[in-house]
Structure formats: C-alpha cells, structure tokens
C-alpha cells in the first residue's frame, strides 16, 4: 500500500489490538490452526473496512449530488428540448431559402436561353436574306452601303447572343452551390439531432419526471464512406481529392 492510501484509510481499531491480532495470526499459521487464522484475518480486515465503506458512501453521495444538480439545471432541459430543435429548424430553413433562390435563378436562365438562341438565329437568317437582296441589286450603291452596315450590326448581335448563352450557362452552373451547401447543412442538422438525443437521454436517466420525449437506444452511427460522407471542406487532408484532375489521375492509376 502507498503512503497516500494509508492516509485515506485510517484503521478504526487501536494499534495495540492490531499488533496483538497480527502476532496471534502468525502463531495460528505456524500452528496450522486454520479456523483461528481465518478469524484473525477477518478481524484485521475489519479494522480497515469500516473506513472503506465510509469512503464508498461519500463517493456515492457525490455522484448522486452531481447527477441531481445536472438534472435540476433548467438550462440543459431548455437546450435539449427547445433550442436544439429550433437550431435545426433554422438550418432547414436556410436550405429551403437557398433552394428557392436557386430554383428561381434556374427558371430565369431556362427562360432566357431560348431568347438568346433566337437572337443568334434570327440575326443570321436576316443577314443571309440581306446578302441575297444586295446581290440582286448589285448596281445600287446606296443599298449596298446600307446592307453592309446592317450586316455588321447583325454579326455583332450574333456574337452578343452567343456570349449571352454562355453567360446564362455559367449562371446556371453557379446554382450548384445549393446542392453542396445543402448537403453540408444536413450533416450539421444530423449532428445536432444526435447530440440532442444523447442529452435528452441523459436528462431522462437523471430525472425521469422531466418527461423528455426522445426515443432511446438509437445510437449514433459512425460515418461510413459507403453511405456517402458529403462534400469535403477545402481544409480536408490527403485522403480527399481536390479537383477533377485528381479524380482522373486516381482512376487512371486504376486502369481507367
């Protein structure tokens, strides 16, 4: 036994009695008097066990008090039953808002793309028709000049229409953020849900009267690559590909 433990467990029986018991024990062992030996060991142990029981009792009270104060902390109940579900609702609402915004943007780009295509098609058709007119009226110099400047305008309209189409595609692709941010937010919502469940479970154990509503026994599953783990953050490590080139390199190394 260490020094520290000798201090913790002071014997409750006097030194003289313990010495006498110890000597009697040695004698009993020497005489092979087993019943006496057992009885003396019991007496020597009893000199300490009273204190061990006190100590266990004290520790039990401490655990009890801690759990009681945990259960009585109103703040934890509010956190688990109101604020965490509320935080989840807010995050879900963020997903809804970004989805609405992305859908609205997509509808507009889908509407605008045929308009840009029309500008391109019609400008090209008109330019062809003008060229035919100019050819049949080749001797009309004034008409030739007008056709020339109109053709230049129609060329620039075609270029603008093409550029517009490309820009509309870019705007459409930018809406991809909604999927990625939505997936990340859903992971946070999931985490909050698990945390909330654990907290409610703990509160239920410590204070069954509180009437918490979570189902128990639903343990949090560990993240599995099989199930998909969602978009990786830019700070993720080497285990994560950083761009499409990395994906292509990896697949190439597998014989793709």
């Amino acid at each position, binding site marked *: 036994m260490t020094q520290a433990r000798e201090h913790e467990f002071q014997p409750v029986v006097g030194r003289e009695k313990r010495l006498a018991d110890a000597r009697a024990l040695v004698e009993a062992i020497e005489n092979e008097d087993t019943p006496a030996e057992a009885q003396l060991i019991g007496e020597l142990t009893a000199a300490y066990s009273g204190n061990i029981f006190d100590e266990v009792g004290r520790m039990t009270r401490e655990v009890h008090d801690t759990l009681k104060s945990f259960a009585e902390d109103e703040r934890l109940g509010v956190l688990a039953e109101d604020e965490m579900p509320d935080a989840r609702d807010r995050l879900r609402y963020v997903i809804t808002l970004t989805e609405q915004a992305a*859908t609205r943007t997509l509808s507009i780009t889908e509407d605008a793309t045929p308009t840009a295509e029309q500008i391109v098609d019609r400008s090209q058709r008109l330019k062809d028709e003008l060229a035919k007119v100019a050819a049949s009226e080749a001797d009309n110099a004034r008409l030739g000049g007008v056709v020339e400047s109109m053709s230049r305008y129609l060329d620039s309209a075609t270029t603008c229409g093409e550029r517009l189409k490309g820009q509309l595609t870019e705007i*459409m*692709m930018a809406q991809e953020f*909604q999927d*990625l941010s939505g997936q990340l937010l859903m992971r946070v919502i999931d985490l909050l849900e698990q945390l909330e469940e654990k907290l409610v479970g703990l509160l239920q154990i410590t204070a069954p009267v509180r009437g918490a509503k979570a189902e128990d026994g639903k343990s949090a599953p560990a993240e599995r690559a099989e199930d*998909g783990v969602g978009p990786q953050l830019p700070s*993720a490590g080497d285990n*994560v590909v950083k761009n*499409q080139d990395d*994906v292509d390199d990896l697949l190439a190394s597998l014989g793709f």
Partner: protein
Amino acid sequence: MDRNMKILVVDDFSTMRRIIKNLLKELGFTNLEEADDGQTALPLLKQGNFDFLVTDWNMPGMTGIDLLRAVRADPELVSLPVLMVTAEAKREQIVLAAQEGVNGYIVKPFNGATLKAKIDKIFERVES
C-alpha cells in the same frame, strides 16, 4: 453516339437534377428522365430501356453506390453505362466506385465541359 438515347438523372437535390438535365440538353440530349434516389430509380431502370445512368452518391433511401451495385447485379442492366456526379471526394470512395463498375466519376463542383468530356469518353469505350 446516339443523341436520342434515354438517360436517367438521379439526385436528391432538385437543383442539381435540373442543372444536369440542362447541361445534357445543351449537349443535344433530349430523352431525359429523373429520379430522386436509388429506390425510385431502380424500378424505372428495370422497365425503362435506359441507355445511360447519371447518378449522385449520397442520397436518402438508396445511395448511388448501392444503385450501382443493384444495376451490376441485374442481368438486364449489367452493361448499362453509369456516370457518377457527386460531392463524395474521398480517394477510397472513388476506388470503391471503380471496383463496383462505374464507367465515369465526376466530383462536384463541376462544369459542362467536364460532363461532355466524360460522356464522350464513356461512349467511345462502350462503342469500340
């Protein structure tokens, strides 16, 4: 490559389904259908004479990797070309998808040029 081929786009986010469908339309594909996870996609595939499957990975219900496995396990669908377009970017995931028989893998965010390049490559191989 047949521009009239029937393509199924599977993603749980409607925004992403719409983006992929629009990109495919720009590439000249018009015969497009969609589903929001593997569970709804599989019956469509089994009855629908699809020529090409574009799927996300992380979806509720049935994930894209399980859909891929189901497709490869079905004698009718075993040779259906499958392209994954997903935010799942862990090396082990890409390796797993390759082992399960994916034909192409695109990591989000992506762009139209990447989609076109991968589709071209897939059908170059399928047709050769």
